[in-house]
């Protein structure tokens, strides 16, 4: 067992319970006599666990891992910890990549001509938000005054009119929120801390495949060439889930990306999942995104599908 690849293959057999007892005894003796063999065995164990968690094992190895390695509570606990650890690690590395991206840009970026279309879109979104916030503040003051009057002289008719007023305000607020979301779909968000015209991440709100936009066209995502991360917001209305899984398939090339354990953000009537996909995983083409929720029984249940087309290059003028 001198060749390291061959040795690691034997170690995997040991850990998966596929090695005869005599061979295991021989390897045990080497574990104690040779520190490097011991360290290598430990590394093989950690790699096996990580590959299981990341679903990189073959079907046969996975079955063997589950029936043999997971037969002790210590190993099951270790795999649970590894699952959380790798999820945290992937998040941390994604954050690091985003933070590192602006630093790599040189002084040339300072003199770069800004993208006016993007700036105008962002300014419009900010203006609308400011107007909406101002309107809400005015109406809040109005409601306070009326509440004060109602408290002083409560009458059934005044209470009723206040309730109607409140209901009306709520529905107006919901309309404004929906309008703002529609604007956001048309004008992808950028990180406000970055210089304009140079996003490291870009966000899109996807509609379910059951709902097409005007003219029944597929949703198009214009991803700038220097985008590092594509954040996809996936709203859905059916079912209650705490965690979700997203898988993306290129119509021609097959599966390109998958992530599980995503948090579900509950909302009034609509829940949302946000998936952060490396832009490199989405070259130009047509895609189908499948969103699945994890039930309380731990099973995956398909929630919805989202079709979209990725386009690359400079953002078109609007």
């Amino acid at each position, binding site marked *: 067992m001198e060749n390291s690849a061959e040795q690691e293959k034997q170690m995997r057999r040991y850990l998966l319970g596929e090695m005869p007892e005599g061979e295991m005894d021989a390897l045990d003796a080497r574990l104690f006599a040779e520190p490097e063999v011991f360290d290598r065995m430990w590394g093989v164990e950690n790699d096996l666990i990580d590959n299981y968690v990341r679903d990189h094992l073959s079907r046969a190895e996975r079955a063997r891992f589950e029936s043999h390695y997971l037969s002790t509570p210590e190993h099951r606990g270790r795999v649970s*910890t590894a699952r959380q*650890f790798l999820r945290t*690690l992937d998040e941390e590395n994604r954050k690091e990549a985003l933070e590192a991206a602006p630093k790599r840009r040189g002084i040339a970026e300072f003199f770069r001509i800004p993208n006016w279309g993007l700036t105008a879109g962002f300014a419009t979104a900010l203006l609308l938000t400011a107007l909406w916030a101002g309107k809400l503040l005015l109406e809040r003051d109005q409601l306070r005054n009326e509440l004060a009057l109602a408290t002083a002289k409560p009458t059934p008719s005044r209470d009723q009119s206040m309730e109607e007023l409140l209901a009306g305000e709520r529905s107006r607020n919901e309309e404004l929120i929906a309008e703002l979301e529609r604007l956001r779909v048309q004008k992808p968000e950028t990180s406000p801390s970055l210089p304009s015209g140079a996003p490291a991440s870009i966000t899109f709100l996807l509609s379910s495949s059951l709902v097409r936009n005007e003219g029944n066209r597929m949703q198009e995502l214009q991803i700038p060439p220097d985008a590092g991360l594509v954040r996809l917001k996936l709203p859905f209305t059916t079912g209650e889930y705490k965690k979700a899984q997203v898988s993306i398939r290129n119509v021609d090339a097959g599966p390109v990306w998958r992530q599980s354990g995503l948090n579900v953000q509950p909302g009034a009537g609509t829940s949302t999942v946000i998936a952060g996909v490396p832009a490199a995983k989405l070259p130009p083409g047509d895609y189908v995104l499948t969103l699945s929720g994890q039930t309380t029984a731990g099973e995956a249940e398909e929630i919805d599908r989202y079709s979209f087309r990725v386009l690359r290059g400079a953002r078109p003028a609007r």
Partner: protein
Amino acid sequence: MDGAAKPGGEWSLNQGSLEKFLSSLDPDPERAGEKYEAIRIQLIKFFDWRSVSFPEECADETITRVIRKIDDGESFRDISTYCFGVARMVYLESRKRPENRRVPLDDAPQIAAPAEVEEDEDERGHCLSHCLQELPLESRRIILKYYEDDRRRKIDNRAELAAALGIPLNALRSRAQRIRNKLEECVVGCLKKGVRKK
């Protein structure tokens, strides 16, 4: 006098016998402590890889038996090899215990299996975040880079990390594994505290 023998002839572990064991590992107390820790980890992992329940208790039982032999006046050319021999005996004895009979997960009878503490994923996640924060900065950096998922570049990434730290790849692997082990122990300890509070 070692004081290891109780009245009535029964041996028990005490400070004197432990110090004898440590000095047989190395005359320098600090290096002896490091070698003791290394042997203990080897033993724990041996029992763990053999799917023995309570591997730490078996490792401690092994060390206790070796200490007793040394206390009785035996000397060994290679303590590691002797520890392995004793560990094998402890392993074979443990196989006769009902909780160590290995069965597939689906077939494990509910009563015979050791009780598992139930905790939710959120609690484990909180413990993990807390334990990651407790790690020294360099250890945290090592473990996050070493286990980064990039199947094609994993070997290159690890080689680059080893070069950046100025250590060979083998030493990096050993260090990353020990940091990860510390992290796992911290999470287990944190979860136990959480369970005791409930």
